């Protein structure tokens, strides 16, 4: 039991921190290069082998590790030291509740591909991510630099504001799946629903006929499209990456709260941002994109189809591998989406960011929750 | 006594129409704070009383369709006041008496509304004066109709107070002049004294009726229960005549009559009416001649069943009326202000009406009320036309010879003078004659012959001062400045037409009360249609007088009128220098009369000044400023301030944590007590 937990933790940290985060830095450079019509990172080489520039992350790490670690005069040394850790740890800890695969039964043993299968998983995510705000805030304050302080101020206000809308935007999802446990959510999304089923449900048409075969995976994004947009916006704002990078907006306050950081401690801030990109991708996948589920191919159908030929054990194992691959495919797609947004949209003014949160997103998320509640009540009332 | 009665929802519209107009004006002026176009004001304000008149006519025709014994229409709108077993309903009654009054009020009222269009046309102040005037006028019409139509004393009292309020508002209408405002206040305050008596009377009635098992206060039930009131008596102080006990009916009658004395300007409360002439002339005509001041007479007639069983009260009414008639007539002889003369003449004529009512000749009182409404309104409106022509000059010393410029006004004014003087066949002759006849024959009243003599002397004086007024205004040479003379001109048609209509009635209205005896002589049965019409409602006491006596009395009355008129003509037309010589010769007497017997000054010294002094010295400076303000309000504040300044302030250090410590200590003490 403990062993399984350790293995799963190592797997996640290895994939997310060890593999994804560095690679994402490369992806970002490459994507920006493509979008800006230039060649991009391709110089770092080991004996002439550049691997399409994939060696750049390695070079970056080497450079950051070897740089001098400067603590500015008048800074609060302890706070300055722990701030990057405060920002990185919650990001990694969020992975604990994101299921990267389903639940599989091999004889007596059960494999549940999630580190911590908490009943209140989504609340855990919110709780942990709310702590992430401290990193930037403390860093800016401890640096004894007015630009940093301004960055901290912006960061704290922005993070707190968007947390409210983030919580409210998934209330609709809570109602749809009636659970906060992310593994349950994934299982619930591993099925399909008839797009026009409500016509029959309310008795507006007697039979759908051929249209009854028109189905969609029962994913959050199809049940709660507005919720998806709102949540995506909020988590991107929480991550403080462009276009929501006001706390570090270099044209205004140089680099915001990590202005006075150098070396690997700057690297930690840098890394935690990319780790959060992966966390966001995982979260979006788990909540809105059906997690590990393969569209139109529920777990039972898959295992049922393969078992007669290859036996239960192989079928389950195949299913598990396919699911994990599906999960990471979706994660990669979500990472790509974030990159695309990051390099497409310009940075708004700070007041526009706050207006967007309080005057547009918050009312929209409230309306979304209310409409969802009404629809669910209507459907249930009809059923009763 | 009239029994039964049909229900008719028409009645409520009669007071409601003017009320709606008044409320509409009130909303526009008071809430929206803007003045409407004059055409709108005229349409609404004159339309309302005219419509009310039409409705009243419809009701009148409904009434005439009923058989003679059951002529009464009832409209119970809603239950207004319920207190224990006593209930006052907002209900209206339309019987022959209120029909006559209602038609007079709406008819004369409509004419005066129309006349006002012309009279108020030059009122161009920026406080919405034109619309405000018509708003008050409509409100007055409504209140007067409430008074007339009210089915019980409470509704009547509502109207009674309403007309008092409107009278106050309209007397002080041109409030820019402090004198006008003072006159309005005087009218209001003097009326309060009468209203006090009226209220006492109502309470006594309620008290009397509550013993008889009656639950509503309407007049018919009162009439039915009059026997129980008549047999009760109350103890009175020993100094009053008839002590130690009076009939309850007498006491009620006197209390209610006190109200009538105030409202109808009888001795000793007549002083407000001459000053009420400060209001616009149409107001004087409508309120202070034709309608409101006759409310007292109407009330006495309406309660004739009560006064019939209260001979003491009736005698008092008769004597007060006669005394007022003579007294006011003597004052009128020496007045120069055209409206003042008319005002005292009104007081005098009201005295006549009370004389008739006191003598039990209620229909004569109502008859004179009606004719007086026509000819006095005519006279007032005529004087208004003169005042308009003279650019708001009211003093006859500055008039004279106006016939040259105002031939039409002169003609209608002369008709009014002839009517009030009592020349046959003008209206005043018949009504005054019937009063004198009733007085002559009222054997139940002590000293009825003396009353008759007073009435006759008053008739002489009436003719004298009216012709004096007429001659001083229209005859002789003009005493106005040249500048004014050049602008004198006949008023507009809107002013003249109501005058013609009123003149018509001043001539012919008398034939409604053509005496039965004359009718029999010329072969017309039941000639006195008014008396017969009113027969069922009023407790008429027919004088037993021979036909020959009646003719003789009439001849005497005509002779009196002629004597007065000739005296006036002799003094003011043929020998215009004589009046001054007489005034110089009888200096003290003349001054006494011209200064109205110094009644205002006496009242001022006896009541007003002591009261003002008491209010100022004792009530204001002593009680209000000293006791309430000084001791209670400021004293308590000073005490609290002293205590707070020297004791409590140390608790309020302003240090938040000090408070917190106190709070924690309190909480700890509480916990310690709980855990003890």
């Amino acid at each position, binding site marked *: 039991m403990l062993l399984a937990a350790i293995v799963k933790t190592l797997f996640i940290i290895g994939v997310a921190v060890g593999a994804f985060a560095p690679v994402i830095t490369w992806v970002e450079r490459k994507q920006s290069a493509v979008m800006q019509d230039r060649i991009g990172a391709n110089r770092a080489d080991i004996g002439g082998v550049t691997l399409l520039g994939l060696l750049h992350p390695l070079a970056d790490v080497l450079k950051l590790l070897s740089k001098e670690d400067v603590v500015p005069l008048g800074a609060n040394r302890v706070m300055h030291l722990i701030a990057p850790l405060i920002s990185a740890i919650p990001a990694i800890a969020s992975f604990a509740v994101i299921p990267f695969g389903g639940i599989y039964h091999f004889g007596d043993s059960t494999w549940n591909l999630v580190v911590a299968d908490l009943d209140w998983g989504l609340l855990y995510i919110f709780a942990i991510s709310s702590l992430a705000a401290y990193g930037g805030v403390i860093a800016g304050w401890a640096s004894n630099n007015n630009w940093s302080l301004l960055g901290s101020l912006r960061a704290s206000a922005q993070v707190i504001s968007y947390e409210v809308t983030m919580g409210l935007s998934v209330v609709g999802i809570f109602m749809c799946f009636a659970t906060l446990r992310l593994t349950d959510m994934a299982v619930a999304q591993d099925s399909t629903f008839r797009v026009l089923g409500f016509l029959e449900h309310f008795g507006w048409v007697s039979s759908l006929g051929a249209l009854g075969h028109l189905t969609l995976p029962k994913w959050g994004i199809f049940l709660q499209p507005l919720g998806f947009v709102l949540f995506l916006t909020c988590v991107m704002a929480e991550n403080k990456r462009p276009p929501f990078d006001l706390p570090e907006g270099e044209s205004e306050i140089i680099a915001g709260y990590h202005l006075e950081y150098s070396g690997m401690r700057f690297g930690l801030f840098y890394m935690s941002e990319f780790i959060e990109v992966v966390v966001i991708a995982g979260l979006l996948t788990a909540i809105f994109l059906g997690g590990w589920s393969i569209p139109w191919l529920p777990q039972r159908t898959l295992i049922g189809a393969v078992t007669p030929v290859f036996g239960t054990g192989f079928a389950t194992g195949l299913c598990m591998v396919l699911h994990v691959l599906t999960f990471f495919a979706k994660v990669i797609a979500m990472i790509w989406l974030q990159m695309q947004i990051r390099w497409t949209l310009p940075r708004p003014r700070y007041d526009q960011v706050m207006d967007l949160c309080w005057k547009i997103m918050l009312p929209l998320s409230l309306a979304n929750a209310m409409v969802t509640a009404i629809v669910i009540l209507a459907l249930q009332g009809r059923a009763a | 006594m009239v029994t039964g009665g049909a229900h008719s929802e028409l009645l409520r519209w009669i007071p409601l129409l003017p009320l709606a107009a008044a409320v509409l004006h009130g909303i526009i002026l008071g809430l929206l704070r803007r003045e409407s176009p004059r055409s709108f004001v005229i349409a609404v304000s004159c339309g309302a009383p005219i419509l009310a008149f039409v409705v009243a006519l419809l009701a009148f025709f409904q009434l005439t369709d009923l058989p003679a014994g059951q002529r009464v229409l009832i409209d119970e709108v809603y239950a207004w006041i319920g207190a224990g077993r006593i209930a006052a309903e907002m209900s209206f009654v339309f019987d022959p008496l209120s029909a006559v009054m209602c038609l007079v009020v709406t008819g004369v009222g409509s004419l005066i509304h129309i006349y006002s269009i012309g009279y108020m046309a030059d009122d161009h102040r920026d406080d919405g004066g034109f619309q405000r005037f018509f708003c008050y006028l409509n409100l007055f019409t409504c209140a007067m109709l409430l008074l007339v139509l009210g089915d019980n004393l409470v509704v009547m009292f509502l109207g009674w107070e309403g007309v008092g309020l409107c009278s106050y508002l309209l007397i002080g209408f041109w409030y820019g002049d402090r004198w006008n405002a003072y006159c309005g206040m005087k009218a209001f305050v003097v009326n309060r004294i009468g209203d006090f008596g009226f209220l006492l009377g109502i309470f006594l009635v309620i008290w009397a009726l509550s013993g008889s098992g009656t639950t509503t206060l309407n007049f018919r039930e009162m009439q039915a229960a009059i026997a129980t009131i008549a047999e009760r008596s109350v103890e009175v102080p020993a100094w009053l005549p008839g002590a130690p006990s009076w009939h309850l009916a007498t006491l009620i009658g006197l209390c209610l009559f006190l109200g009538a004395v105030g409202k109808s300007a009888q001795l000793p409360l007549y002083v407000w009416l001459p000053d009420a002439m400060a209001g616009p002339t149409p107001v004087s005509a409508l309120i202070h001649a034709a309608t409101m001041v006759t409310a007292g007479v109407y009330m006495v007639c309406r309660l004739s069943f009560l006064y019939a069983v209260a001979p003491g009260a009736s005698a008092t009414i008769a004597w007060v009326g006669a005394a007022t008639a003579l007294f006011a007539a003597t004052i009128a002889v020496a007045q120069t202000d055209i409206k003042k003369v008319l005002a005292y003449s009104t007081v005098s004529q009201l005295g006549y009406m009370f004389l008739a009512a006191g003598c039990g000749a209620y229909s004569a009182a109502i008859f004179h009320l009606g004719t007086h409404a026509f000819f006095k309104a005519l006279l007032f409106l005529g004087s208004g036309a003169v005042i308009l022509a003279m650019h708001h000059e009211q003093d006859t010393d500055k008039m004279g010879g106006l016939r040259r410029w105002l031939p039409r006004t002169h003609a209608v004014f002369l008709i009014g003078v002839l009517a009030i003087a009592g020349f046959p066949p003008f209206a005043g002759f018949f009504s005054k004659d019937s009063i004198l006849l009733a007085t002559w024959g009222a054997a139940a009243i002590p000293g009825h012959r003396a009353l008759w003599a007073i009435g006759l002397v008053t008739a002489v004086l009436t003719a004298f001062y009216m012709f004096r007024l007429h001659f001083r205004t229209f005859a002789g040479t003009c005493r106005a400045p040249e500048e004014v003379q050049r602008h004198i001109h006949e008023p507009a048609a809107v002013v003249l037409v109501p005058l013609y209509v009123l003149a018509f009635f001043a001539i012919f209205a008398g034939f409604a009360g053509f005496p039965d005896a004359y009718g029999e002589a010329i072969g017309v049965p039941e000639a006195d249609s008014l008396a017969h019409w009113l027969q069922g409602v009023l407790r008429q006491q027919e004088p037993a007088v021979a036909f020959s006596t009646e003719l003789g009395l009439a001849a005497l009355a005509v002779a009196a009128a002629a004597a007065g008129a000739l005296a006036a003509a002799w003094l003011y037309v043929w020998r215009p220098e004589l009046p001054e010589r007489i005034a110089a010769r009888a200096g003290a007497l003349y001054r006494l009369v011209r200064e109205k017997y110094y009644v205002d000054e006496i009242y001022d010294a006896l009541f007003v000044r002591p009261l003002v002094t008491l209010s100022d010295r004792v009530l204001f400076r002593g009680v209000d400023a000293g006791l309430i303000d000084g001791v209670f309000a400021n004293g308590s504040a000073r005490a609290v301030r002293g205590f707070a300044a020297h004791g409590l302030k140390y608790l309020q*250090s*302003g*240090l938040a*944590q000090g408070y917190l*410590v106190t709070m*924690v200590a309190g909480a700890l003490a509480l916990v310690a007590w709980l855990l003890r």
Partner: protein
Amino acid sequence: MIPLEHVIGLSALLFAIGGVGALTRRNLIVILMSIELMLNAANLAFVGFARAWGGSAGQIFVLMVIVVAAAEVAVGLGIVIALFRNRESMNVEDVSLLKW
């Protein structure tokens, strides 16, 4: 299983610490934070009792307290900002005038 006495004892300790902070510190913000600490101590007692009785009421109370605390912080810090804008001071003893 945690003994309830220990939970309540911890709660009392935290409450006392918060009380001392609120009474002795002069920094307005720290006073507010001390009050938060006292509220949290009360919450802890609620949760402990809820666990001991096995009912949900105590936890509902905690939710209410959290809301009250949030409201208190919002208003309290609003006052602090307004005060600082007028007084340039965060010292509770500098605001001993009841009006200005």
